[in-house]
């Protein structure tokens, strides 16, 4: 794949990322996360949530093929939101999960 070292597009091969929110459930989590996604032109394709080990866990499947933001920018925005809400938010390319959980 030809591209310079300096360019940092958020989409190497897979345009899908998985956003994870872990913490205490509160009003407006999905709304606030969705707003960050919408501003970055990221399409949310799936949302699931569960209580596990006493944690509220939400995952969002996100299509980042049309985003103009870099992974770093998206993560910085989510970090600010996570601090404000007292949650942990991660945003990772889905390949890491596929590699670890599918043969």
């Amino acid at each position, binding site marked *: *794949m030809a591209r310079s*070292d300096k360019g*940092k597009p*958020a989409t*190497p091969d897979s345009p899908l990322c*998985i956003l*994870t929110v*872990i913490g205490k459930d509160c009003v407006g989590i999905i709304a606030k996360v969705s707003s960050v996604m919408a501003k970055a032109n990221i399409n949310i*394709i*799936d949302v*699931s*949530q*569960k209580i*596990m080990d006493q*944690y509220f*866990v*939400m*995952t969002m*499947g996100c299509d980042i093929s049309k985003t103009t933001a*870099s*992974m*770093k920018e998206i*993560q910085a925005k989510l970090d600010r939101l996570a601090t404000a809400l007292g949650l*942990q938010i*991660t*945003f*990772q*390319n*889905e*390949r*890491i*999960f*596929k*590699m*670890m*959980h*599918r043969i």
Partner: protein
Amino acid sequence: MTISVEEVFETVNMTLRHNFDIRTVTLGINLKDCMDRNLGAFCRRIRKRIVEKGQQLNRMADQVEDQYGIPITNRRIAVTPVSLLMEPLPQRESTAVRIARELDAAAGKAKIDFIGGFGAMVQKGITRSDRTLMEAIPAALSATNRLCGFLNLASTAAGLNMTAIAEFGGLLKLLARRTKNGIGCAKIAVFANVPEDNPFMAGAHHGIGEPDFSLNVGISGPGVVRSVIDQNPECDLTELSEIIKRTVFKITRAGELIGREMARLMRVDFGIVDISLAATPNAGDSVADIVESMGVSRMGRPGSTAALALLIDAVKKGGSMASGNVGGLSGTFIPVSEDAGMIRAVRSGSLNVEKLEALTSVCSVGMDMFAVPGDTPADVLSAIIADELAIGVANHKTTSVRVIPVPGKKAGQIVHFGGLLGSAPIMKMARHAAPKFIARKGRIPSPIQALRN
């Protein structure tokens, strides 16, 4: 989505709560084509290549880290063994020290924390250049910060080079005296059967069978393994082995993905994934803690060797299912100073030098980062090294020694190295070993196990 919430949670938890990280991405760089009879010209070439590639390595590692959300803790470089590169150059200590400084400065400029390869393969014999490098070790490693050295002093095929082992004891003492708390000795490891693609310091180098560039990955997840053992306090050992295997499979797959992605971005060959469980001084990142979680009351007590054997066997089985490129050391690291559980074991008296040696005969890859009194005689250090390397030679495995004779310290005291190197309790050491045996020098022939053809 094909991945369930549970699976996502498991992966995210590994990094958020159990210190899972890619411990190191190490770029092996061939420098043979930089060789020259002119020292200045040689140094210019190696500097240019290391700075260029080192900066690229850091850039790509940042990018991959952002992409996958798995921290890449260290970015390192390993080069062709320096004694080989020095062959055409004037054979003086100053030559070796100049090259050492050059490698150190290039790594610094590229913001690479450690660069390995200041070493020689002397398992069978010593060339003039090997000798120059060996004698320059105290000066070179005390004049640099980021440079790491290695010597392969033995192999199953060649036996043990006792001449080199006898000399190394003295060199180690000189190096210890030239650096604060003997810390220079933490930057050199001596080996039997050294792997040529090991990504971990201090022994990393780019072997002669390697391509121009090779990207090797060291994963680390003692915290992850310990957590699954803690979640299964009652199961029997067969089941425990299965549980460890499944977990290691997952973390090795992550290592393989990161390694391949890094190699693709850098347009270099992907080398190996080293599946060694590597401890750090951080809480919860301890191999000794895993052994204790398995049910051994304290690391070093009876049961430790069997527990460690089970652990690393399961690690290897899970790892080799996950990646076709498992290599490097891929054993257990139990560095005393870098593992909080090991420090606790030494301080409580449950672990001594003899048991540390016993553990390496089964599964660990060496007696690593242990401190001994500064007045330990050179021949005793050589004798310990000979014993440890003999275990590797006879068992067709890698063994290594990284020992720090700390000047002015006595057994029972503590020395603080700081950072990743941690702190070490000074271990009790025999004052008399085998002076006449070591003074004989020569070579212990290769064992009968070497005749396999």
